[in-house]
């Protein structure tokens, strides 16, 4: 698997898109710092962008890479290599290079601005960690979709739909249900609903770490009580890990049944 990962990674490091992604984050970091003139505020703006954009890029990049490397995959399948190694190697190649672009693209401007001398270093660190998690999750989901759909247009459509569902529509439904069910106690329901969507989960985690949960009113207090404790942090990180592992596991199992 490591060999395949190495070749996929090299392949991506040579492709234009990794650099476009890297330069985009680099520019974003510098612009935000320039406009906000304050590390903590820049982190908040950045969070709003990361939580929506990272899943989108992970999804699209993952699905494009899978379809583009189909021939390469077929070549590998005839070699004495385990199937799951091929797919997991390619997956980690894509997810790894995307995470690296994110890490370096945002890390460089913030480090240059004096991140390590400020108090925001942990907030920023958490932001990057959740960004990396979101990349891993959405790339894995898109690989699953690509594997199940030989038709590229369909696969692409489903992938974008999934992103739209988790990053945009889910929030709308969530709010709607809160309004419709406002007579009932909703603490546990909203906690569970947050845990079930990696995008919401990341957002909540960062907001709570930034200590601006007061903005969220009563629910914020409940969340703070839950996420603020050791237990809450562990559970939410566990949910993110679960969100990462499940699609990767499914990828490893599903690829053994696929015809090429």
């Amino acid at each position, binding site marked *: 698997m490591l060999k395949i990962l190495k070749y996929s990674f090299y392949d991506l490091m040579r492709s234009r898109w990794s650099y476009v992604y890297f330069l985009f984050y680099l520019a974003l970091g510098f612009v935000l710092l320039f406009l906000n003139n304050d590390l903590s505020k820049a982190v908040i703006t950045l969070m709003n962008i990361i939580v929506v954009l990272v899943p989108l890029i992970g999804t699209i990049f993952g699905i494009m890479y899978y379809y583009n490397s189909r*021939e*390469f995959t077929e070549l590998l399948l005839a070699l004495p290599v385990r199937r799951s190694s091929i797919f997991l190697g390619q997956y980690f190649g894509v997810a790894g290079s995307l995470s690296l672009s994110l890490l370096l693209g945002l890390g460089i401007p913030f480090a240059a601005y004096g991140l390590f001398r400020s108090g925001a270093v942990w907030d920023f660190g958490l932001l990057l960690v959740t960004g990396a998690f979101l990349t891993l999750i959405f790339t894995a989901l898109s690989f699953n979709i690509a594997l199940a759909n030989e038709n590229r247009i369909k696969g692409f459509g489903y992938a974008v739909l999934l992103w739209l569902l988790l990053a945009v529509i889910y929030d709308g439904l969530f709010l709607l249900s809160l309004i419709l069910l406002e007579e009932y106690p909703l603490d546990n329901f909203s906690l569970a609903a947050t845990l079930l969507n990696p995008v919401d989960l990341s957002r909540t985690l960062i907001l709570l770490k930034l200590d601006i949960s007061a903005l969220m009113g009563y629910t914020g207090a409940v969340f703070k009580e839950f996420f603020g404790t050791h237990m809450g942090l562990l559970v939410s990180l566990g949910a993110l890990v679960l969100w990462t592992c499940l699609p990767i596991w499914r990828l490893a199992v599903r690829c053994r049944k*696929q015809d090429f």
Partner: protein
Amino acid sequence: MIEVENLHKKFGKNAVLTGLSLKVEGGGIYAVLGPNGSGKTTLIKSILGMVVPDQGLIRVNGQPTHRKWKYREELSYLPQIANFPGNLSVSELLDMIVDLRRQPARQQELIAEFGLEPFLNKKLSNLSGGTRQKVNLALTFMFDSPVYILDEPTNGLDPASLIRLKERIRLEQSRGKLFLVTTHIMQFVEELADEVIYLLEGKIYFKGTLEALRQRTGQNDVEHAIAAISTQEPNA
């Protein structure tokens, strides 16, 4: 040795292989023939483990192949369509495959044989179809495998390369290698094949030597014999 027992494969509603059984032993060149869509490629890909059969058993050297990968060390496969990752150069691709297979390779010998030196540093996406096929051939014959599986090896080759390919196949044949070759070029079959395996509607319709084929159909010309065979009653 390759053994296939009662192989079934459907793609959606389309049943491609319907209870195919086959046994090939020792060395020799077996030409896998049949009309378009008769299941030649599916059979080959099932043996390679790229297609997962619905039913049936495949053994390579006595070992079942289902969900295994180690047995592919014994096989070299030439795919029908030579598509490679475009942003690699020829030499990078060759090095990569050698690295992935972890088997001794006669890289230089094959590069010289198919005249690939001028292209070594070129990107694969910039190569012509014929040159890509030569790269494909070099990749396949680079490894000293007991079994070679070739899917339409003559695709897009110029006459000089075709001659070299035939020489290479004969050389490996004399070393006791087993070949499974699909092709639509009957001249190729006539020159090289020891036996013909004829597929029709997902089953083996005829298996035997060219001589047996000629006798059975009463045709002297292989092309006509092949064309005539599917109109006769099966007895193989």
